[in-house]
């Protein structure tokens, strides 16, 4: 359905904000999000396999509150595949050079037990311009 006015666009924004709240700073609720870098650099270094692996883990363990979101490149191409784990109330954690084994390890430790695996994390050092 077409958006008929700026006000209508703003209403849609209000309703959509929940979708991405988690990515900035932990909101309430218990939905966990895994972002995965799916730009050319990510895919070329194996992100598709990681996406499939994570999706398999989610369905194998029958977890209902995890959503996997493909995103673009954050510029750290040297460390692809990259995933970001967003858990409500916590600062997002970014992992680099995630291979299949690491993906499963991270899933079991961070998603299931809530324990981040520090040795695989990436320090990122940039600030994003705010839009609104």
């Amino acid at each position: 359905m077409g958006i008929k006015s700026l006000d209508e666009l703003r209403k849609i924004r209000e309703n959509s904000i929940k979708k991405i709240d988690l990515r900035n700073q932990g909101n309430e609720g218990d939905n966990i999000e895994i972002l995965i870098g799916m730009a050319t650099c990510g895919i070329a270094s194996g992100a598709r396999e990681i996406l499939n692996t994570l999706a398999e883990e989610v369905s194998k363990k029958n977890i209902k509150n995890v959503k996997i979101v493909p995103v673009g490149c954050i510029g750290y191409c040297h460390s692809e595949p990259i995933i970001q784990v967003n858990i409500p109330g916590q600062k997002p954690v970014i992992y680099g050079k995630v291979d299949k084994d690491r993906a499963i390890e991270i899933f079991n430790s961070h998603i299931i037990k809530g324990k981040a695996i520090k040795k695989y994390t990436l320090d990122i050092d940039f600030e994003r311009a705010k839009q609104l």
Partner: protein
Amino acid sequence: MTVYRTNILVCGGTGCVSSASLDVYNKFKKLITSAGYDKEVKIIKTGCFGFCEQGPIVKIEPDNVFYVKVNKKDAEEIVNEHIIKGRIVKRLLYKEPNSKRIIEKHQNMPFYKKQFRIALRNCGLINPEDIYEYIAVGGYEALGRVITKMNRDEIVDIIKKSGLRGRGGGGFPTGIKWEITKNNHSDKKYIICNADEGDPGAFMDRSILEGDPHNVLEAMAIGGYTIGADKGLIYIRAEYPLAIERLDIAIKQARELGLLGNNILGTDFNFDIEIKLGAGAFVCGEETALINSAEGKRGEPNYKPPYPAQEGLWGKPTCVNNVETFANIPAIILNGYEWFSSIGTEKSKGTKVFALAGKINNVGLVEVPMGTTFREIIYDIGGGIQGNRKFKAVQTGGPSGGVITEENLDTPIDYDSLSSIGSMMGSGGMIVMDDTTCMVDVAKFYLEFTQDESCGRCTPCRIGTKRMFEILTKITDGKGTKEDLKNLEQLSYMIKDGSLCGLGQTAPNPVLSTMKFFKDEYLQHVVNKVCPTGRCKGLAKYKIDPEKCVGCTACAKVCPVECISGKLKETHVIDQNRCIKCGACFEACRFNAVIKPK
């Protein structure tokens, strides 16, 4: 809303939490509450400051003071001294390991965030295939405001005052380009997004389109509204299938929501976008060649004027902008031109995205404010040179640019500073080279590229770049003369002056710039017939190690050109002028005395 006079930020990152930052956080809470300051001072658990070795980290704002290795007792001291009495606790400040210099302000710390992302602001944050996520981060708000509340002159004014210049290489002020196209009256106008990105080693535009396609669509609609175009075209190389697919999805979604099409957001503004695939020729990134190609003609440039703003696609006024240029537009509309023009240098505003490649540790994309230095990009953000080798040069501007050497590492990067040191901003490729890179070989690489990509329309570029490539090949084969160097230089100026378009006009730059900064290396090749880095195989030399040679004569016996001399039981010598580098001596020697070139 309560306004706090001071914020105490306690790092809640994994690293700091493991060093007991939560205890420190709780301690602060208790101390501040019992001191009765809880209405004035807020305690915030933050994300990682990226300095985990020094945790727990505590930052006091707005004072911008940064304390390291804070324990529960230190928290008491910080509250009593800093918060209550306003005195900085020197003891807890960070000391630079080498100089032992005490650093107070966060900005001065070596790991301070150097990147600021405007064009890449949503990349890696939102799902590029979901328009609702883009809307959630404020997407299409700028378009909405523009078409419902602003007139075209106002927008031109904002873009002009923002100081935004074209990111496709030329650096032409975007506001002026929009104004000119707007003022050229016609029944039909077009706006084109240049996504050809043919510069080897560059992938900024691809990443923007893959990570945040709606940003570019929104900006094109804003541009279309401003100049009076109802049709947009994205010219993108077919080698970017993922970007094309995501653009395709984005355009479909925007049409479904009525953000492209007729009567956008209930106004009388109509705008739609079409994708045009290019075959990947470098010259098709040049705007007039692009337009020819988009019309189905050969991808060859035209003489300018007329400029596309006068006579572009199908002879109509056309505004051509680069992907990254567009990616800045919505943020400028929403945050204001004052915000944008406060970032960067006097004549180059905002940020620039660079694709870091070559012998650098952190290969990837960076976006930094204009005015950042090469040293900051290469060492602080890029993590330095691979294998800790020595930095030799960095090429900016791709095949149209030149090399920047050690002496210019501290140059603040902007359009003008780069031109003044013989390179150019270009589209943003940055290829880092270490001491194993041969500069003649680099120049040859770029000339091989340009002579191949030359469209052939004008003679200086078609034949000139070919001759330059041949001379460079001769030099790297070890057959060059000093005369060749002179010819190279002369040809360079002839091609620069005589070529029709930017491709030829800039093609000799890599040669001129490497000849300027590495003259000695060229001379070594032509005079001494040596490639100092050992890269040029044609100059490779077989040698005999006098320490190991026992004078058995085995090598001399197998040499097909009889260029090895020496008496029995005495050291043998290879006559380099006659050696054909067949390697027979190397195979024959049983004492490892023959040294094979690298």
